[in-house]
């Protein structure tokens, strides 16, 4: 019960607490360590004394005191006064239920993590770790990197921020464009983390609403940045399809088999609005094409209308011109199979870097489907097994198991 309560609080408020501590003490390590310490204390105290009314506030206060202690110890060691004003914790603190106790500093922390003085290959990873609370192994998988490599990047980036004196402030608007790319990659990865579990029940389910809200904020703040508007469009389209992503047995429904009647028309209209605004601006990049691909799907009105494979393939061709990576190639192959045939698609997929794709579930699922349709049942079964071995969430697992059963017959 308490473990569950702690887990829920951690998921709901962990990122906000870490961001608030980091902004207050201007130290990423202290923020991370003290939040972890507060969680450890909660795990000891809550089962004995009961779960406090506002668990997040309890964690924040505990972590805050831990941070002050750590800074005092450091100050004694270095004979330097700590930067921040010490807060005055009172007896009432423990009893007050204050929803506004924890300031929302996530946007500020995003801009710290995405500072141009931080190594480009560490910015999004650091944001995902500190602002979204993803574990190192989850981030490593998202970037298709070995865990120690990623862990080392994070350590270096945190040290750089502290040693070089990167300020914990939201910069002036003129400094935003150069930090935007990392901010947008972060939003994409965090959203896809939530999206990869079709049931929306995984540990990162909250990201989908958080990230949707964040894209709205960014689009409001930067109405002249086409990539920001395109990103907002992508997330609105993707989120609109959520109601159709599960069937009555709780299995995932692939995009081309989803019933468009179930899609959220309001979100689709918002997505189209962002896309139209993005299309009118100069300086478009890969994201506007991604948004256009989503829009092509969302134009479909019912399952009796043909799926827009040709338009989708055409857009993926254009996307490959500006962003040629394995994931774009894999997605393009799915459309290619419908337009040019399974064999052509299979050739493309077999050319991808097998080692880099080994932990990427869609790779195995797409490959298995193409192999099955090409008549190579044995290889298809192995590919489905490889997908299942990655431990997918239940909706994806049910769908994969159904595919495996179909291969057997």
């Amino acid at each position, binding site marked *: 019960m308490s473990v569950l309560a702690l887990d829920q609080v951690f998921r709901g408020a962990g990122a906000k607490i870490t961001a608030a501590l980091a902004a207050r003490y201007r130290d990423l390590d202290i923020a991370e360590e003290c939040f972890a310490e507060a969680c450890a204390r909660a795990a000891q105290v809550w089962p004995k004394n009961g779960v406090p009314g506002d668990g997040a506030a309890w964690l924040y206060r505990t972590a805050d005191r831990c941070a002050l202690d750590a800074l005092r110890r450091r100050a004694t060691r270095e004979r*330097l006064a700590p930067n921040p004003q010490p807060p005055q914790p009172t007896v009432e603190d423990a009893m007050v239920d204050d929803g506004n106790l924890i300031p929302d500093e996530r946007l500020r922390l995003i801009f710290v993590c995405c*500072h*141009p*003085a*931080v*190594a*480009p290959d560490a910015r999004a990873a650091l944001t995902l770790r500190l602002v979204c609370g993803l574990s190192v192994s989850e981030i490593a998988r998202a970037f298709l990197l070995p865990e120690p490599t990623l862990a080392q990047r994070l350590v*270096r980036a945190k*040290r*750089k921020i502290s*040693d*070089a*004196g*990167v*300020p914990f*402030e939201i*910069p002036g608007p003129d*400094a935003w464009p*150069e930090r935007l790319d990392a901010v947008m990659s972060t939003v994409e990865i965090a959203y896809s983390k939530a999206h990869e579990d079709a049931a929306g029940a995984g540990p990162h389910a909250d990201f989908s609403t958080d990230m949707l809200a964040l894209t709205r904020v960014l689009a409001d703040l930067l109405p002249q940045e086409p990539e920001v508007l395109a990103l907002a469009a992508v997330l609105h389209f993707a989120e609109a399809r959520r109601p159709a992503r599960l069937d009555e047995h709780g299995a995932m429904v692939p995009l081309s088999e989803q019933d468009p009647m179930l899609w959220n028309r309001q979100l689709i209209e918002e997505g189209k609005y962002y896309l139209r605004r993005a299309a009118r601006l100069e300086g478009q990049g890969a994201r506007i094409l991604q948004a256009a691909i989503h829009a092509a799907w969302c134009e479909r009105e019912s399952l009796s209308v043909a799926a827009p494979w040709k338009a989708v393939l055409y857009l993926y061709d254009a996307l490959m011109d500006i962003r040629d990576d394995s994931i774009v190639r894999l997605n393009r192959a799915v459309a290619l199979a419908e337009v040019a045939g399974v064999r052509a698609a299979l050739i493309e997929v077999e050319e991808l870097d097998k080692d880099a794709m080994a932990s990427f579930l869609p790779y195995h699922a797409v490959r298995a489907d193409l192999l099955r349709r090409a008549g190579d049942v044995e290889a298809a079964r192995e590919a489905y097994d490889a997908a299942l071995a990655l431990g997918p969430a239940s909706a994806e697992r049910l769908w994969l198991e159904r595919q495996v059963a179909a291969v057997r017959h």
Partner: protein
Amino acid sequence: MQYAFLIYEDEAIYGPNKSGPAMQEIVAKHMTFNRELGSKRIGGAGLKGTASATTVRTAKGMKTVHDGPFAEAKEQLGGFYIIDAPDLDAAIAIAKKIPVLQDGAIEIRPLLGIE
């Protein structure tokens, strides 16, 4: 005449964050050396390691900010400033104002022991 002495060494010997035992040794030696210099010494400081470096590059009139020290060999060291700034953004803003006639770079490195 006044002269600037620029010290080049393998920073790895001083350990991560320049905190290893070799650092204490070299600091003691510099203090002895400073006493010998007496009034001849006008200024000077140790720098934090290159991991803390940020570079503002100017190329074709465009100024961009990068992680890491200045790495290209096409340009040569031509001068230096020591400035006081509240944080890296303030330092970057000043670095962007340092006049550079054509292409060039300003490497920003925090001084050791001054927060």
